[in-house]
């Protein structure tokens, strides 16, 4: 099965112009699985998923900003969990990790979810984490958009 996945993903990337995704940003196991769902001659499905993810991420970031402003840690935790799920599904691992950390922070745990922290600490860390997550997300978005080719750039307008 794995061999087939490789076939599919490599074939897909060939079709997409050979742009490889940086493995430190995108988990190719997951993303390859996504691509595998594509049809043979385009990436409409995966692209839609990814674009969907972009939308979702941006929306979530906005909500996170708002929640941070409100110091609503519970909401931050929920949002972190939410984005963690979708980012994990797409394979954007750094965003996923950041969101997981945020999920923990929102519950007044440290990033690993092991130790308790105060609300101030949490907010502080959330702020930093959110920033990191956004940065990582931007990188991933760029990479993904590259992967899908510049022709789709017009959709990129949605993201910001």
């Amino acid at each position: 099965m794995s061999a087939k996945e490789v076939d599919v993903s490599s074939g897909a990337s060939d079709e997409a112009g050979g742009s490889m995704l940086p493995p430190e940003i995108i988990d190719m196991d997951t993303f390859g699985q996504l691509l595998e769902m594509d049809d043979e001659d385009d990436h409409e499905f995966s692209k839609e998923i990814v674009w969907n993810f972009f939308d979702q991420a941006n929306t979530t970031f906005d909500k996170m900003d708002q929640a941070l402003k409100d110091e609503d840690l519970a909401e931050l935790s929920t949002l972190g969990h939410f984005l963690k799920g979708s980012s994990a599904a797409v394979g954007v691992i750094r965003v996923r990790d950041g969101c997981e950390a945020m999920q923990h922070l929102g519950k007044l745990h440290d990033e690993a979810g092991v130790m308790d922290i105060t609300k101030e600490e949490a907010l502080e860390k959330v702020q930093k984490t959110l920033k990191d997550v956004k940065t990582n997300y931007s990188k991933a978005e760029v990479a993904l958009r590259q992967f899908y080719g510049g022709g789709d750039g017009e959709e990129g307008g949605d993201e910001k």
Partner: protein
Amino acid sequence: MSGRQSQPWSQQPPNGAGGSTSTHNNTWQAGNGAWTSSGPPRQPQQPQQQQQQPQANQFAPNPVQQQRPPQPMYAPQHQQPRDPVATGFPQQGFGASQHERQLSGHQQPVPQQQQQLNNQFAPPPAFAPGTFREWHGHAPPSVLTPTYEQPQFSFPPGMQGQFTSQHPNQMRGGHSQNDGYSGMKGEDDDKGAGGGPGGQKQGTSDFVKKLFTMLDDLSYSSIVSWSHTGDSFVVRNMNDFTKHILPRHFRHSNFASFVRQLNKYDFHKVKNPEEQATQSVDQVWEFKHPDFIRGREDLLENVRRKLPSGKKKGGAGGGGDDRDLSPTMLNPAEAAERGAEEYQQLKDQIATLTAAQDQMSGHISNLTKQYQGVIGEMLTFQRNMVQQDQLMQNLIQYLMNLENDRKVEASSVASGALADGPFVPAQEAQKLIGNYQDVAEATFGQMSQISQRVAQSSNDEATRGNDSYSKGGNGGGHDSYSTPSGQSTVASPTSQASRVSRHSSIRQSMAGNLSPKSMATVPSPATVPSQSALTPAVSERPQGILRNNSDGKSDEMSMFLHPPHLDDDESNTLFNTAANIVDNPSLAGFEGAGLRVFTVGTLQPREGSSADGAGGSSLNAALGRATSEGNGEKQDYGISVPPLEDLPADMPKVDQRTTSTTTTPAPDDDGDEDADGRRRSLTPSDPGSNMLRVRRSTYVPGWAVPPRVLLVDDDAVCRKLSSKFLQVFGCAIDVAVDGVNAVNKMTMSDYDLVLCDIVMPNLDGVTATSLIRQFDPRTPIISMTSNTSPDDLLTYMSSGMNDVLPKPFTKEGLLNMLEKHLIHLKTVQKMDQIPKQLGLPPVSKETLEGVLQATAASAAALGTSGASGSGSGSGAGKGNGNGESSGWPSSSSPGSGKALPAAAMMGNGPNDNPNVVNPLAAMGFSDEEYISMIQSLLAAGTV
């Protein structure tokens, strides 16, 4: 009279202790004889005589007896003949009466014959002439029996009873004394020791003393001795005891008598169960008496003869004498002796039987235990068999997939293999499955649901007529080509028509065929997907309409309603095209694709469904589509072979578009147009794309009925991805965006499986599961979550979830989960065989029947395995290590949820069994092939 005493008297000649004694003896001996001969005693008269007579007999000299005038008349009569003997010829009289010669020594010569006796007695008549005469006259000369009988004759009938009772009285005192001795030598001993009736009361009885002495004699210890405790004695060897010791000490060799004697003295036999169990009961006897104790000679006095039992006394009425009560007692006494003996025997017997019964019951309990063990083993074995069956099914499926894969690849490269192409068969198999859904469904009790769904689907289709205009625009033309084409190749009658209109209409019919089936998988009409499931069919309609005007549409409709119906022209053309297809190697790959198309077709609708309200935007798209010439060209082109290849390629496109339309309608259209162009350019040589699709479809499990899965997730990305996976896996999907939505959907329709996110707005997955479990305890609910700490898992399980699919999950993980919990929906891949024979007309009836039987058998097998699986929902999860998971259908029981690792471990067991019968033999695989397949499978699975 004299005959009475004959026995005792004659046997103890040395015992002539004195006149009185002898007389006494005579008396009671005579009485004894009278009693025995006279039969039943007369009780009423006993009391008086008992009191008087014994004493008279014992202590008073004979004259005293004679002096009793007041005695009943018969008494004198009776005694009269005897009295003279007693007084006048004390010995003589007796001697004469005896038959024994021994006694006659100091007596007058005694005639031995009865007649002589009679003569001898003749003189006494002087004393009592009347009576004697009578007696004499009556006595039969030849009778040898004791003379005491004669007096009986002498009495008038009325008196007889009294007379007989009188005799016993006389002898009673002595006789009671000798109870148990009569006829035994022991009697003599005792009598001698006692020196008469009174002797017994003082001191120890001789018998007891002898016994005591005997036991003290150590030389007998091996035969008879005290027991260890000293409170009883044991006869260790009855035979030796009887032969050697009894004669020496008791002057007889009758063990039974000895025992009887012991009983008389209230010795009791001691039971020793062990001994009885191990050795002959007859050889070892142990007797016990409370006062018969080793070294305690002083207690021997207390060892006495038993008193007559209470009931004898009762018979005696007021008789206070504890000795003899009445003549009647003698019989019971003897009977009691015998009874005691028999009682002992019976007791022994009972003890033996008891022991035997104990043994038996022990044995039975052993058997019971063993039986239970066997039953348990059988159950285990059965369970293993079920596991093995499921494993085999998985293997078969996997192998078939592999085989399909291989063949597809081969066919895409080498052309000739079309006829053998597994996919045509596969497709046909799908059709057959559809036809025989009933079988599978009946097994799973889903028949009614399916029929419902079919009805719904047809309704939907009908209502979809209008929608088809709008939706059909979504590249439906391409879809229709692909679907129908696959179908046409499969169902021989429906191949490509030469005219576009025909073509499309046929396709429609085919789609009509298809759609009901696919619809059957759709859970409920309420769900959007169900409508979209029709898209393939619908999409064709617009094409037909656009191209062929309204006529075409009506045709389509009719065709749709009556799929099997074909015009002659059409059928001809169909055959032609079919022939083309067969001849054209390039189609081989495409045909393979056809199978996929089918699955995609079923999937596609749902995808559309997941996108809500695509209608409006799709209308635009449809219009654009319809007007675009490119499509038209394609359609025209489609008559020939190349477009056929084209079409499958388009299929997925259409899918994509429907979904994409929902989100970004406008750009999609453009993209589609572009895609169309690209596609067309690719079509001429597009084996690679086919390959790709083939690969993807290899994952599709062989569902007998597409499982209805409810996907609950608030995350659109995850939801979409999961739906896609599920589609690929051939599931009918419904989605819910949160817990409330999920619960509502669960109340409205049935699902085979629920995939549920945990963290969701409004209502989280755990709570939703709890709610669902209140009305639906069975449907497997699998949590999809990234929170998989043990605590979380416990929470999930306790809420009623059956399993956990950690996020982000892989396709394989999802597939494993599906197969694990939906094993009961899987069909054996033998179905793939069907098309091989059916794909090319004419169809051999025999092969068809064979296939049908196999199908039924497999369905039955599935059913049974499912049933047994649910019965043993012990949580023994089964999955096998190679990624082809097999699961218990019993996931219904919440407790059956198991840790994934455990399931994986369990699953590996059956794999190790090399002695598997080739289950594929029926499919034409040789054993070698099978083994190699297994090996490669194992290799693939363990990597």
